[in-house]
């Protein structure tokens, strides 16, 4: 009986409980990434995977007896900022893709390789605003 209580206490210590939950989040994000098609949902799935990684890292850092490892916490902070930057850029791409094609879903299968490709070196294309910049946008 005592042995069981000890095992339980060991298993339920935050140093093991939180990394386990982090691993579950990682797997859950992976599952969502495979199953869902809308790009915004895929980005959410990747973010949840990332949170899983951070939870493992912080949980592992809190395992010892003393104060938690500050290096692990610093790495997590760095990771969160990287994640938000990548997310912001990904969302900007998704909006742009929707504007161009009318959908925000990753096409299943390999895309059309023979689709025409615009060539910036010929100066036919100008990235000076695209379809979005209207005059309304600029203050007089």
């Amino acid at each position, binding site marked *: 009986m005592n042995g069981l209580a000890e095992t339980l206490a060991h298993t339920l210590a935050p140093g093991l409980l939180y*990394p386990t939950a982090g691993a579950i989040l*990682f797997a859950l994000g992976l599952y969502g*990434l495979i199953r869902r098609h809308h*790009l915004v949902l*895929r*980005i959410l799935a*990747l973010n949840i*995977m*990332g949170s*899983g*990684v951070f939870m*493992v*890292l912080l949980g*592992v850092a809190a*395992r010892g007896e003393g104060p938690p*490892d500050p*290096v*692990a916490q610093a*790495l997590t902070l*760095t*990771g969160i900022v*990287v994640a938000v*930057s*990548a997310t912001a*850029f*990904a969302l900007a*791409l*998704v909006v*742009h*893709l929707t504007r*161009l*094609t009318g959908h925000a879903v*990753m*096409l299943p299968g*390999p*895309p059309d*390789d*023979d*689709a*025409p*490709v*615009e*060539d*910036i*070196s*010929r*100066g036919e*294309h*100008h*990235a*000076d605003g*695209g379809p979005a910049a209207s005059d309304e946008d600029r203050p007089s």
Partner: protein
Amino acid sequence: MTPANAEWLPAAIAGLVALSLVVAVLATAWPRQAHRVGLLGALAITAWVLGLSALFLNAGPDPEAAATRVALGGWEAPLGLMLHLDGLSMTLLVLTAVVGLATSLYSLGYVHDRIERRQFWPLWLWLWAGLNMLFLSGDAFNLYITLEVVSLSAVALVAFTGTAAAVSGAVRYLLVNILGSLSFLMGVVLLFGEHGVLDLLLLETRTEAGPTERMAAVLMTAGLMLKAALFPLHVWLAPAHGSAPAPVSAVLSGLVVTGSFYLILRLWMGVFAPLATPAFGILVGMLGVAALVWGSLQALRAGRLKSIVAYSTVAQFGYLLVAFPLMLVDPGAWRVVVFFAVVHALAKASVFLAAGTLQHAAGHDRLADLGDVLRARPRTVFALGLAGVSLMGLPFTGGFIAKYLLLEAGLGTVLAGSVIGVLWVLAIAGGGLLAAAYILRMVAPAFHRGHEDAGEAVSPWMDWVPLGLATVAALAGLAGTLTLNTLALTPGAP
């Protein structure tokens, strides 16, 4: 070892990182002059890398003493971050400098729109800085960060023309990259949790074949394979590389993919070395053969010039996978593999640049309608052919030496009594034939009789740079001994 070298080398290494960053920051802060900053920076970085390699080679022939570690901010590992330079990283730095300089010169002609220029140069200089930092990093978490620098700037470069094909290629590329990075980071976290350090050399001394190492190896290798587009995780490559602007495709296929491969090699030679088993090697080799066949077949079927080149990257990276089982029999074979990767990067970059010139001239890159331009532009076709010959591995080119050495290693495994070695030999020889087929497909229209039309005028940069780089790729065979000797200066590697 000369004392002067030993003294200067650490400062020169930190200086290379600092110089790349200064150039990138300057171009970001001052976009109006970004192309001038970029040109001067490209020259300066190349000169610095060449100087560094001279210092490095002068430091002496002893592999154990050749690795130089620099403690950033004066903090030694495990507390601080260490930069790490050895023969392997030196070789890839030189490769990056050569391809980087060529791409920069080419871009002077290719990206001429004022607005485009302001977007292109800062991103490209960040990408270059990221690659330099990746090859010099000696810390597991820092590797993750440099990988992110490389992949975010690479994705941005794919997308920046803003067309539907480019943006959808970029979205796919970005999601794949984030997934790969997260998988890599999870591996780093597992190793950190077990051993409490992040420095690669310290990790190497502590790792054994336990559950943590196995899981970390799987996660990190899978993440990097995804980023390197190694078969079967390659599906994203062709859309991203094929629809990017030509200089970007050149850098992606030549350098970025090679960077991920470098990391796989470095990890398996160091931290994960205790885990390598023959069964694992054979599995990876099989994947390589499959990549070789599948990529070549796609390249034979593709309708666009740049798609052919992009699929050929998938195929050529099959060779790199085939090399893994060879390394288990002959540990020294890794040097041949790296040499092959270097030659491939040079040749592939020049093929993409040449394809960009043709696309510019014709206004499209549909192979079926490219004949007129091909016939009218012998210089570019020559560059295409010269680099292609190196990819095929015809005699007297860098590609020949690389493939010859690979074959030799393959035959070594056969002689060592491995039946499956026959498959590797067949793959290496057959892959060359397939490469010949799709490369001939690209240049063949130039030799048909027909109408000639030079198309749109092309800036001299776009005319000459592909030829120059293709020549370098072909002549790389002459630098074979030098490269292999430089690679030998990697401590801990056979």
